[in-house]
């Protein structure tokens, strides 16, 4: 179930947003995509999701070319959380989460899966609330719940793609989300997450993809990417790296 990105270039409206990006991630990996604004993180995620066709190169998961699958086939095991999600009608939180099961024709265990996801995302008390009346962070948790619901029972076949999932979440829910993702990846699900919080990326991701101006600057384990000079170059900032015994992973502090 390896995710292979081979020399992928993407264009939107004739503008090249991604150029020759290549990396591989083994099954059950949690891959973080980091980089400055407009660097091509979302474009890369959209290409992996099969939403954008690369002008060159190939993206495959479990040796299947993502762009040769039909929408219905892809939706069986690839779940995508876009950066922004709106809802035009007053569905309840539980109904939105249950929409994640739309690709699965069989209704077996549907109720149980929805209940499990509501509990996992701590949405039990909010499940009957109308989505449009929820706060930004609560809406985000509902949308993440919907995405998790889509692949909850797929384990090692599943590919989870999340674009800035922590943006509206408070610290406790950020940590809870990453623990959930880690549990899924431990079960064989692969996950690719676009992140702005480099410390979260360092702490939870197995591999990091650093991109800037559409090019892959660095790919590897968190320590490898952190040690490269490209991180500072990509963001145009000074960083100092720290480590404590109890955390088990390095963290950065931004200097002036």
């Amino acid at each position, binding site marked *: 179930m390896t995710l292979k990105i081979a020399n992928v270039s993407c264009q939107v409206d004739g503008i090249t947003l991604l150029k020759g990006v290549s990396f591989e991630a083994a099954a059950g990996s949690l891959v973080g995509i980091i980089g400055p604004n407009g660097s091509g993180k979302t474009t890369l995620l959209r290409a992996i999701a099969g939403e954008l066709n690369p002008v060159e190169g190939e993206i495959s998961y479990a040796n299947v070319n993502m762009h040769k699958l039909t929408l219905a086939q892809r939706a069986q095991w690839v779940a995508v959380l876009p950066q922004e999600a709106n809802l035009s009608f007053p569905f309840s939180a539980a109904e939105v989460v249950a929409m994640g099961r*739309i*690709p699965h024709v069989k209704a077996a265990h549907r109720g149980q899966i929805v209940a499990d996801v509501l509990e996992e995302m701590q949405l039990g008390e909010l499940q009957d609330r109308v989505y449009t009346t929820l706060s930004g962070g609560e809406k985000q948790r509902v949308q993440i719940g919907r995405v998790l619901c889509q692949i909850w029972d797929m384990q090692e076949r599943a590919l989870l793609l999340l674009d800035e999932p922590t943006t509206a979440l408070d610290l406790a829910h950020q940590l809870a989300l990453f623990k959930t993702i880690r549990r899924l990846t431990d079960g064989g699900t692969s996950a690719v997450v676009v992140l702005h919080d480099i410390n979260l990326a360092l702490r939870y991701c197995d591999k990091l993809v650093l991109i800037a101006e559409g090019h892959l600057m660095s790919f590897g384990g968190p320590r490898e990417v952190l040690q490269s000079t490209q991180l500072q170059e990509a963001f145009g900032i000074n960083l100092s790296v720290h480590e404590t015994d109890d955390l088990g992973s390095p963290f950065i502090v931004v200097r002036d």
Partner: protein
Amino acid sequence: MFNPRLFILGCMLVLVAVGSLTIGAASIPLGELMLAISTDDVEHTILFDIRLPRTLLAILVGAGVGTSGAAIQGLFRNPLADPALIGVSGGAALFAAGFLVFGARLGVSVTGVAGSAFFGGLLTTWLVLAVGRRGGTISSMLLAGIAINAVALSGVGIFSYISTDLELRSVAFWVLGSLNGADWQAVGIASLIPVAILLFMTRSQSLNAITLGDREAGHLGISVSRLRLEIIILTAVTVGISVALCGVIAFIGLIVPHLIRMTAGPNHFVVIPGSAILGGLLLLLADTLSRTMLSPAELPVGIVTALLGGPFFIYLIVRQRGSLGL
């Protein structure tokens, strides 16, 4: 999937339908209804040749317009959307008005009005689709619909301007909507509407998915471009048939899906059949009012639907502040 609210609505529809058969210029009391079915007198003729086809046509057309409204609002993710937005009503009105003015002068039969209206409705819908596709977004299709509707209605204005007084009266009456021409042939044509409603119902899941957004629906395995085409074609055919048979029926397509969402939630598995039942019920009520209020004369039903629908809609907006999803 049994829904008690829809069941109650269904019972109300049956009651109003029976009631509408008894009311009119010549009253047929409820107790004599069965007698009128079995005997062969004037009441039998009124019941079978006038009231029954009219009642059935009102239910079918109301159901079709209500369902189309629900599907179009879902597709455009906009609770203010109306089936007229895809140009079908404007186009049908333009071609019908053209036919009423020029067709009458050429001595062509009235069935040609329905045919022209249906053809006009489909043609303008195709235009809206084509322009919308060039624009690339769902908003460009909405804007194209508004612009093409405006052009079509100005065309109706031109035809009205050059028409004779008699022709003007037919154009005005047709544009305002009426079930006056209901007969068994019209019911036969309108019997295609339940087929369209069933097809709409099979798209409930996809319509639920698209409320999340086009991209999100795609990630849930829904082909948005295909769904859009299917819903627009189904709406064009359903509303096209309705407008061709009864003229433009205002407000049913807008207000009915709202009422269902407010009482039974936004799930399209409920909204689509609910809008069919409530659409039929409201148009039947409006038509019964339109033919009895000034009996033996009758008001165009579009006036009644707009007259009752408009203030009621305002009342709902004020009472339900914020919960309409606007």
